[in-house]
């Protein structure tokens, strides 16, 4: 398999040329991208549980005792869209119109992939294995991949628009699921290697199949997800059941024909990139040339070619000669969206380095160094820890980078290194609680941040299942909650507020009653539309900006 930048001729994307020598043409689909977050309202599209058998038996979540309806799985025989929807939700067609109120029962989808969920002994999964650890839309937004702590990847596909239900977009259904990584044991160190999926990154689509990279702490894998809806029939040497025929009984020859079959989605591992990282991989990033990608661990960054699995180039190495002198680690890294020679990486000391691979083979000397001087009035014991950057993301335009540290999100202009151009307080009310948060380890939580398709709104998560959106143009922000209790389908999300001190108004939550075990670390934003996916522990919420 050789990946070549190529023109795509299918679907809406034929007008896009992919390649490092040009920037993507075409603006994101208009819709409500430009309305920003303050003016639109967000509704819950669907809530999906990451499918495991154990989620039914988990003692942590409320057990959903409704009967499982397996029929909506793509593996089964529901080939047509109509049949698909009606079989899974059993809704009368009149309710499928946008303006009708939703049925009284919540259509939260609980899925399981083990057919026989009544015999738990066959699947000894840990109760925590369904905590979602990464969420990522693909480049078109048609697919949404989630990875969980149990090493599984679940891919959701957006429902196709049809003429009848043109408003019923934004719903995602399970497309494929597979076990990406297994737990391993490092015999040398007598330590387990977690199978938790740290990151998933999609490759741009080159042909009918989809490709994604998934990684755990040590190994990166390239997966191919493809559909099969035809199979050959009429073999000469085999009969219909596959048994070999006695050649003596064959009297005529025929040409096998392809006949339609039930749609099957299969995932196959195409490449395994292993044994290149001594420390834990925290980031992977696909280069804009679509031939290489990088994987970053705590101290090193490696550059890979997709075709070559037994070699990688080390492009950054910050391991000191004497490990006692180690004071800084790499926390995140990403390639520039258009310039295939440029990448950034962030550190635990709150700095970002931009490197140019053309300068030298080992990019230990940065081209640009982004650091904000410390605010002396905010100094505390925890200044260094809360300045540690947990995520760094380039804007789609490639002109800005966004960084997330414990209490803030910052937007930096690549042309200005001495301070960010914008700083947004995510949950500044936690500043007085840092000692307790240090004690219970919450201060080490790694929140991610995302841009919307037009780079006008940024989003990040917080505690108590809250997530925040900041509109960079209007400077307005909103806090929303992803919770089961107050989320009926099509329900409008109500903005939440945390009160810091003094009188607590109705509907406000006081800082002391925040639940720090419910944290939203992983979110994703559709590349062109206002659809977001929010992972709250083992629940995945999909919200859409309501278009009036």
């Amino acid at each position, binding site marked *: 398999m050789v990946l070549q930048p190529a023109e795509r001729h299918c679907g809406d994307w034929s007008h896009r040329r992919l390649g490092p020598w040009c920037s993507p043409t075409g603006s994101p689909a208009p819709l409500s991208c430009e309305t920003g977050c303050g003016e639109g309202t967000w509704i819950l599209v669907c809530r999906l549980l990451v499918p495991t058998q154990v989620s039914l038996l988990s003692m942590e979540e409320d057990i959903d005792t409704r009967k499982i309806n397996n029929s909506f799985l793509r593996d089964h025989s529901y080939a047509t869209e109509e049949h698909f929807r009606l079989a899974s939700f059993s809704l009368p067609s009149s309710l499928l119109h946008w303006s009708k109120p939703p049925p009284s029962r919540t259509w939260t989808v609980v899925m399981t992939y083990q057919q026989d969920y009544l015999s738990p002994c066959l699947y000894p999964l840990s109760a925590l294995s369904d905590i979602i650890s990464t969420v990522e839309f693909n480049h078109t937004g048609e697919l949404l991949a989630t990875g969980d702590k149990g090493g599984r990847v679940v891919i959701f596909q957006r429902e196709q628009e049809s003429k009848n239900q043109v408003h019923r977009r934004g719903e995602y259904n399970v497309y494929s699921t597979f076990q990406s990584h297994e737990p391993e044991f490092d015999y040398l160190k007598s330590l387990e*290697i977690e199978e938790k999926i740290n990151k998933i990154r999609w490759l741009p689509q080159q042909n009918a199949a989809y490709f994604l990279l998934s990684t755990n702490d040590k190994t990166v894998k390239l997966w191919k997800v493809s559909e099969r809806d035809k199979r050959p029939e009429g073999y000469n040497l085999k009969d219909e059941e596959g048994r070999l025929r006695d050649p003596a009984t064959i009297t005529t020859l025929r040409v096998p024909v392809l006949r339609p079959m039930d749609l099957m989605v299969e995932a196959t591992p195409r490449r395994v990139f292993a044994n290149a990282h001594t420390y834990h991989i925290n980031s992977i990033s696909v280069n804009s040339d679509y031939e290489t990608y990088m994987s970053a661990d705590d101290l090193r960054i490696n550059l890979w070619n997709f075709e070559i699995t037994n070699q990688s180039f080390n492009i950054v190495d910050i391991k000191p000669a004497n490990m006692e002198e180690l004071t800084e680690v790499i926390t995140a890294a990403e390639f520039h969206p258009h310039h295939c020679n440029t990448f950034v990486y962030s550190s*635990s000391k709150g700095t970002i380095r931009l490197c140019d691979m053309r300068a030298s083979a080992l990019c230990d000397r940065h081209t640009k160094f982004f650091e904000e001087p410390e605010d002396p009035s905010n100094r505390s014991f925890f200044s260094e820890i809360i300045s540690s950057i947990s995520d760094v993301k380039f804007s789609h335009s490639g002109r800005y980078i966004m960084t997330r540290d414990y209490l803030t999100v910052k937007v930096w202009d690549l042309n200005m290194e001495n301070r960010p151009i914008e700083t947004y307080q995510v949950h500044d009310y936690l500043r007085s609680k840092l000692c307790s948060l240090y004690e219970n380890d919450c201060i080490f939580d790694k929140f991610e941040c995302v841009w919307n398709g037009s780079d006008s709104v940024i989003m990040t998560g917080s505690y108590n299942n809250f997530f925040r959106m900041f509109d960079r143009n209007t400077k307005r922000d909103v806090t929303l909650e992803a919770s089961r209790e107050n989320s009926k389908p099509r329900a409008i999300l109500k903005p939440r507020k945390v009160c810091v001190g003094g009188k607590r108004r109705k509907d406000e939550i006081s800082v002391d009653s925040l639940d720090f075990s419910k944290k939203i670390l992983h979110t994703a934003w559709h590349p062109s539309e206002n659809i977001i996916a929010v992972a709250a522990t083992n629940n995945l919420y999909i919200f859409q900006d309501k278009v009036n």
Partner: protein
Amino acid sequence: MLGKGGKRKFDEHEDGLEGKIVSPSDGPSKVSYTLQRQTIFNISLMKLYNHRPLTEPSLQKTVLINNMLRRIQEELKQEGSLRPAFPASAPPAAAAADPLGSSSREAPPAFSQPAPAPCELGGAAALEACLTPASLLEDDDPDTFCTSSPAAPARLAPPALLPPEKDSFSSALDEIEELCPTSTSTEAAEADGPKGDSSSGGPGAPQRPEGLQEGGRPEDPKLMDSLPGNFEITASTGFLTDLTLDDILFADIDTSMYDFDPCTSASGTASKMSPVSADDLLKTLAPYSSQPVAPSQPFKMDLTELDHIMEVLVGS
């Protein structure tokens, strides 16, 4: 009353201790600053050494905790060198003279002294607190560890400051958090609380370091293997070796404190020290001030120093 100053945000629910840290120049808040620093130091040590992961511990977390410990150590070192008048050296010296248990009683009375410099005493207690973990953990040889552990850790108050379970620790944390809105004297009295509670397990004190040691020993090889270059252990020995007993106790002794009756007489066994003149002590202790002390030698040095002091006592 803490928490009402201009530098802090007024919030009756806010933990003044956890709020913005004021510079240690204010009198009463100095104690809270030192308390918090001590608390954070202990939390950090617990995080590093009590954690038993099945998988490799996160390097980022370890690095951040180590940096925190280093910073606190630097601060303590600076404070130690900035204060030539070191009144707290009397309790440690007294503690050094006494075998078991009494040293743990030294700290609370020393701590409860009103003004002269409560922060300094807290600093001394903090320094002592530094020392025990360092001496516990620096010594990689289990044999030396075993033989020296009953003597040394009991001599130094700090195991009392490292509570065995997190529960008592959180309660200590809560007590400390409650401290700030109250007056200094109440603070100091309450500060006695956690220390008093832990020190009342005086006989338990020798057991706890051993417990820590046992917990640490099977752990140590694991930690040492899991992090390249013995990052955790040697890093801690690296930064805590500088802070030897020598530097703190004998560097600049303020002889006036030896005449300070409330300080010395507050502890029962310290009365033994009263007949000793300050000059005699200086003479006995001076030879040691220039000695560079290796990590494993503090215990041996204590014994020889004890001999000398006993000679002085018997001699007079």
